């Protein structure tokens, strides 16, 4: 370890983003006066190639052993500057950033005050930088194999992609068949192909694939380990003992699907009370048989009601179920084609036919005679042999009583009620709507907060087959990256235990959200798994013996920052 810190400070203009509100030259001049600072510069765009070049040159020519870049949030360019340093042989953890953009120039308008604040932030970061230590970069090996939980269309497609890439895949399915809920559907939209024609060959490929092991009637009952090195216990129902030794895999894909909304929860629609009222799933079953009515009686007036259990705060589902508009258009059209003389009406709030070919499909459904009426149905009552839908036609501006022989409720999708155990096992968080939460709603739709665990299909949110398949393949891509590389990197800024100080009390084990610390079996001392550790610091502050150090955020580093700010 070098004796004296030799710190280079770089103040970024960020175009006008910082420079407009902060006098960057002044800050650079101030920084030059700080203890340990050997070089202090300001530049237009530090993240640019020339900007990084400045850092690299100074490291080489001035023998810098610490770098402070005062610019944007580390979430933007910490990797950039670390990489620049590493390229010329400086340990990347000897680079620290001061956020004088999001935390300064972007939120203050008084230039003088903003400049003073920027100086304080820089001084604080320089104080920390003086105490930084180089950290080791580690990688762990990856077990070449994946686990897919759920054998529906999402699970099948994800499994195939991983297996086709040459890796063994265990496909765990809790029921006695694969194909999931898609199996219960007759035809797809907008192409109106038979589901069996699509699913059949897919299932066959999976069954016969040399790299795929399908475990039916099975559930995941324990998950240990970490990305690249999971150990998963799979238990076949109904026995409660695991059947064999745990499966070892490198990636896990969750594809557990969805539940359908139970329309009993909307009693005013008469489901369960009137035989005339059925769900869209039950309509699919009828379409399989090429009939619409029961006992040979074909209905003359058929109504479809959308948004049943979706976009409805009264049942706790404010979200849209995404597929029902197309399911309804498909069923309405097929029914109209089966019964050309029948009146087929769809009651709606909006028509969300957004996919490829969907708007055209909606147009064609109307061409075939399906009538779309704007206004959702408030309740259904019986009148003689028929039922009556009470609603308002919002375009006519008056209430209606619509008699029908058959009413189809487009029930929405919900998060499965039985994934609680799995979600706990995998430590997967959920969104407000109950589905699994992805890491970032825009840019990370299949990754989760747990490294190595990915989401595919409706378990993350309602979607149709096309989007499910795309997402399943996306999950496969994420799952394949560590498998193909063969290693995964581990976070360097993790917590470490000083064994001499550790009393073996186990409090760190209790408070860690990631299960990283564990008490050694033989010697009552905690050891922290550096792959599971995310460097949150909870254990470090909890430890009553102060035996845990959070690297890169040590007590002395943080105190140095505070001291510099307070001065």
């Amino acid at each position, binding site marked *: 370890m070098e004796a004296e810190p030799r710190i280079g400070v770089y103040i970024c203009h960020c175009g006008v983003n910082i420079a407009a509100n902060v006098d960057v030259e002044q800050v650079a001049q101030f920084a030059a006066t700080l203890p340990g600072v050997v070089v202090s510069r300001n530049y*237009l*765009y530090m*993240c640019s*190639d*020339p900007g990084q070049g400045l850092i690299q040159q100074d490291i080489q020519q001035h023998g810098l052993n610490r770098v402070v870049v005062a610019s944007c949030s580390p*979430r*933007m*360019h910490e*990797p950039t500057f670390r*990489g620049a340093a590493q390229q010329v042989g400086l340990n*990347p953890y000897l680079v620290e950033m001061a956020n004088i953009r999001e935390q300064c120039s972007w939120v203050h308008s008084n230039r003088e005050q903003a400049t003073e604040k920027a100086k304080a932030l820089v001084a604080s970061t320089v104080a920390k930088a003086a105490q930084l230590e180089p950290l080791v*970069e580690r*990688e762990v090996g990856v077990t070449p194999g994946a686990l897919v939980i759920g054998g529906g269309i999402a699970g099948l497609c994800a499994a195939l992609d991983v297996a*086709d890439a*040459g890796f063994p895949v265990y496909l765990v399915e809790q029921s006695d068949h694969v194909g999931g809920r898609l199996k219960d559907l007759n035809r*797809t939209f*907008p192409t109106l192909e038979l589901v069996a*024609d*699509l699913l059949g060959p*897919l299932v066959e*490929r999976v069954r016969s694939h040399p790299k795929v092991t399908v475990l039916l009637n099975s559930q995941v009952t324990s998950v240990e380990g970490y990305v690249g090195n999971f150990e998963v216990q799979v238990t076949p129902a109904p026995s409660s003992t695991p059947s064999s030794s745990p499966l070892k895999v490198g990636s896990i894909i969750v594809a557990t699907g969805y539940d359908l909304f139970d329309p009993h929860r909307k009693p005013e629609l008469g489901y369960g009370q009137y035989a005339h009222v059925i769900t869209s799933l039950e309509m699919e079953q009828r379409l399989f048989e090429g009939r619409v009515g029961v006992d040979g009686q074909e209905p003359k007036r058929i109504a479809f009601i959308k948004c049943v259990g979706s976009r409805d705060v009264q049942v706790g589902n404010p979200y*849209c179920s995404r597929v029902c508009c197309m399911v309804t258009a498909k069923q309405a059209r097929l029914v109209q084609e089966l019964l050309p003389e029948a009146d087929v009406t769809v009651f709606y709030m909006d*028509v*969300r036919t*957004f*996919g*490829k070919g*969907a*708007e*055209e499909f909606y147009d064609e459904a109307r061409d075939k005679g399906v009538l779309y009426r704007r206004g959702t149905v408030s309740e259904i009552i019986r009148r003689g042999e028929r039922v009556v839908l009470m609603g308002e036609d*919002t375009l006519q*501006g008056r209430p209606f009583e619509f008699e029908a022989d058959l009413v189809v409720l487009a029930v929405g999708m919900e998060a499965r009620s039985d994934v609680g155990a799995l979600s706990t096992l995998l430590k997967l968080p959920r*969104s407000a709507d109950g589905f699994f939460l992805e890491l970032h*709603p*825009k*840019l*990370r*739709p*299949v*990754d989760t*907060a747990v490294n*190595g665990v990915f989401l595919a299909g409706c378990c*993350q*949110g309602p979607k149709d*087959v096309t*989007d499910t*398949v*795309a*997402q399943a*393949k*996306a999950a*496969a*891509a*994420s799952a394949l*990256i560590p498998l*193909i*590389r063969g*290693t995964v*990197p581990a976070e*360097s800024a993790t917590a470490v235990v000083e064994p001499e100080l550790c009393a073996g009390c186990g409090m760190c084990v209790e408070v860690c959200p990631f299960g990283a610390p564990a008490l050694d079996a033989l010697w009552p001392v905690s050891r922290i798994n550096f792959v599971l550790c995310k460097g949150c610091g909870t254990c470090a502050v909890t430890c009553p013996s102060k035996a845990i150090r959070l690297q890169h955020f040590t007590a002395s580093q943080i105190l140095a920052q505070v001291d510099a700010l307070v001065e």
Partner: protein
Amino acid sequence: MGTVIPSEARNLDKPAALVIGGGIAGIQAALDIADAGFPVYLVEREPSVGGRMAQLDKTFPTLDCSSCILTPKMVDVGRHPNIELMTYSEVVSVTPVNRETGKLVGEETGSHQSTNLPTYQPTKPPAFHVQVRRKPRYVDVSKCTGCGSCAAACRMKGRVPSTFDEGIVKRSAIYVPFPQAVPLKYTVDPSVCLYLSRGTCGKTFLCKDACPAGAIDFEQQEEMVNLEVGAVIVATGFDLLDARLKPEFGYGVYPEVMTGIEFERLSSASGPTMGKIVVNGKQPKDVVFIKCVGSRERRREQAALGSQQAALGGVPYCSRVCCMYTAKHAHLVRDKLPDARITVFYMDVRAFGKGYEEFYDRVKHERVIYRRGEPSEVYRRRTTDGEIHDGDGGGRLVVLAEDTMLGKPVEVEADLVVLATAITPRTDMPQTAGLLGLACSPDGFFQEAHAKLRPVDTALDGVFLAGCCQGPKDIPDTVAHAKAAAASAMKVLVQQSSSIHSSSTQSSSTHSSSTHSPEGRPI
């Protein structure tokens, strides 16, 4: 014919992928394939990657700043040791090659075309011979520091409409498209540079004189590069309907009428007005948003028109993102102009994605009035004296629509009208399609192999689609689609490569392992 790019730190025994297009789709696909350890050539015709997403202000429904979530990925792509970023370049030809014989496919009997079965698997691993034209920037990128002195000195400064800013801002003949460009290197636009287009630029080259690094080189020639790749991903993105094709809305005639993408630039803090909503020098009091401009339009003869429909001003499909970005725009206006009256005219509100309906609810609670009815025209109200006045007292724009809830026509005055124009296939689709032998769907976008089960595959082995070039999508669906294309490409590349995965003691000296991994670092 030209030079082959040296592979630097790459494993030469790993087959490479070609990604055509450097928007978010191309970037995501390239990163996934590169993270898996394969070399990727990412070819982008503009001087910088980033595509349309870089033009956006904030994204729905999270209201993240678009550049802030995009630029880290752009930087990643620029620095990834496995990615060769070729900006300001175009793919000239892609020729399938039979790996075993080395012959070009087509020289042999039998076609390389595959079938559209849902579970089709190629029998022979594909390979392609690719030619890329690297257009001359007239700037030596090894010397350019991106300082901007050249642009400041350029004789054409302030006279060239910037495509990135939708023409609202004027730049110089030498430029970077936007300040966070990757790579941050200047480029001379040969169509407007006086020297390149007319042969002379005054007595002296002002740009050359200003450049402290001596980077400007008008002798630079284009370069043709030959590449051998095992998979091709097409991520060429989309265009937007020319709003002048809908003259009833007065776009191009009334300065107060703009398109959604122009609004993005107006609202952006790095845009022409630093994010202030200002029209005709004033803050608008009444803002009207019109959706479905050119989308969801049927024609009897549309089957015959194919992708020409866009050129005639109307497409039959739904553009998928406009309902949400209009809600977002309405929110941004409310954020910046708390007292404005904001009206959104709609036929349906398609808030279908995760968190979208809740966002729509939120926007309505911010006093954005949604009125059902597709406006028919926009006109300027004449004042009583027959003159057109600016400001109060007359001469304002009027949006004419039927409010289908009230069941009567309404006229809503507006100081700003934003048109959500249709997303259309790029006008150069036929050329790109011809390059690769790709088919297009009736809507004019590239045709996927199977509508339900193979959303990224094409009829050609080894060629995949990512993002909006296959059909309009929002960012989450684009990212998933791009990752799906990467998965398809990875399968093919794995099959082609000599070893399936690198040894577990791979050296960790490259910084990519610790700083680029998506797994360890949430964005």
